[in-house]
């Protein structure tokens, strides 16, 4: 049982910033942003490239985060004020990022195994120590994100997702905030990429495949579970964070359990899909105060 918890934790600490980015994109900005796959790789790639070139890892990480933010600004510009559907814009941006990532990295795979990273000192002592430090970085990143979300900036982002034309009529620079919002989410995705590359020992151009979809699945799962227990809007930030955590935990727990039951991984995604359906159907029963989404 502890082994299962441990396995789930090892995957959570790398995945949570991305899950949060997906959550903000999906729930706050009301956009399904596929760019996150690409910015995950961009974060990992920029970090790996700079670190292997000898640049101090902390600086590499910072530059990698900024790169992620810039990817977000790019997709916001592609959307051009809502003229191109956000989903389409995200897919286009992800395409562009495939090339950018390859250019940045120079080759499909950069190894970090023998490099000095932010986590290598910890993993060299023990895995537990390594994952604990990763967890601390993860918590710090999520904490900063939560503070931002809870601020005036976060509120304006919510308004943007809810009613952009009203926000414009109130005199707020909507496009500016939209760019900042996507910069925020893609920086979070890049942060996940940075952490992941250090844990798994490499940055690879294909390591982001399917991450956004996994994130969306986890968040829907988490939101529905949360709805079963609470229907208040008051501690919204806490609710969104919990939904991320719960959903991702369930996803990874299911994956690890099925693996250890020696279920062929071919059936894994199908079974996970069924689990998702069960949760969604349970939540679709008419609730007391149903809010039209």
């Amino acid at each position, binding site marked *: 049982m502890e082994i299962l918890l441990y396995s789930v934790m090892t995957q959570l600490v790398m995945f949570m910033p991305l899950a949060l980015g997906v959550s903000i994109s999906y729930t706050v900005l009301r956009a399904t942003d596929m760019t996150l796959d690409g910015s995950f790789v961009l974060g990992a790639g920029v970090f790996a490239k700079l670190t292997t070139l000898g640049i101090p890892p902390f600086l590499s990480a910072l530059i990698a985060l900024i790169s992620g933010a810039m990817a977000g600004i790019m997709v916001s510009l592609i959307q051009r004020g809502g003229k191109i559907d956000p989903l389409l814009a995200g897919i286009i941006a992800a395409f562009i990022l495939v090339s950018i990532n390859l250019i940045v990295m120079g080759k499909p795979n950069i190894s970090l195994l023998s490099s000095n990273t932010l986590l290598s000192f910890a993993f060299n002592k023990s895995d537990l120590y390594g994952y604990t430090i990763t967890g601390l970085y993860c918590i710090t990143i999520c904490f900063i994100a939560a503070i931002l979300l809870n601020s*005036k900036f976060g*509120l*304006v982002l*919510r*308004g943007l*997702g*809810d*009613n952009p*034309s*009203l*926000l*414009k*009529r*109130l*005199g707020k620079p909507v496009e500016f905030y939209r760019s900042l919002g996507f910069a925020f989410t893609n920086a979070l995705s890049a942060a996940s990429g940075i952490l992941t590359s250090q844990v798994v020992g490499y940055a690879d151009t294909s390591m982001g495949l399917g991450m956004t979809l996994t994130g969306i699945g986890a968040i829907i799962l988490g939101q529905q579970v949360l709805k079963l227990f609470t229907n208040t*809007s*008051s501690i919204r930030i806490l609710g969104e964070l919990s939904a991320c955590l719960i959903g991702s935990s369930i996803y990874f727990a299911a994956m690890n359990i099925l693996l250890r039951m020696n279920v062929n991984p071919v059936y894994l995604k199908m079974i996970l899909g069924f689990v998702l359906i069960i949760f969604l159907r349970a939540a679709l029963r008419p609730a007391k*105060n149903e*809010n*039209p989404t």
Partner: protein
Amino acid sequence: MKNNLLSLQNVSLQFNSKDKKILSHINLDISPKDFCVLLGSNGSGKSSLLKVIEGRYSISSGKLMFNHKLLSDYSSIELSSNIKSLTQNTHESLFTSLSLFENYLIFSHQKNNKKSLLDYQHYISPFNVRLGAKANELVSNLSGGEKQSLALGLLFINPPKLLLLDEHTSALDPKSAHRIMELTKTMVVKNNITCIMTTHDLDEARLYATDIVALKEGKIHHQFKNRADLSTKELLESCF
């Protein structure tokens, strides 16, 4: 020269050269503090006229002046702070997935703290006593009347020069509709706001209007001042 806040000179609106004109040669002058009511059947062009004044639709021909300047010369920010509208679709005027208090914070540019919460409760109570206690409720959970009260309240945080009301009480029950109308009139008078309102309700028109304009098929059919001496029969005949 009359001091007109709003002046339409020979304004026409047509989306396609082949289509029928939605508005045709409209000549209308609105003075400050006027309460102008637009009457007309569905399709007469009432809503389109309001949208043209708000700047949502561009006119096809004619001159549209607001405060002695061409409407098209105003920036979108200037326009949206000077001219505001309320319709029966409250979801256009509110952030429905946010709480009442959060809506207030965005409209008033205030920070989230105890003081602003008290400010909110103090400010919103005259519009509807229940709204103060519902600070953390989501707007989507409110009733129609409560939503419209809230929309009205939030709009007046930064009162415009010109207020456009497009049947904003038509989706409410008679009691709420009357309440909202009274509230609207009070705020308009208090803030010296010029108002243009569309409605089907003749009693409402007679009660509140300083001017009545009857629209028919995109043209101004009749214009009345001093509405007190009009009877219902006369109004019906000329407007519908």
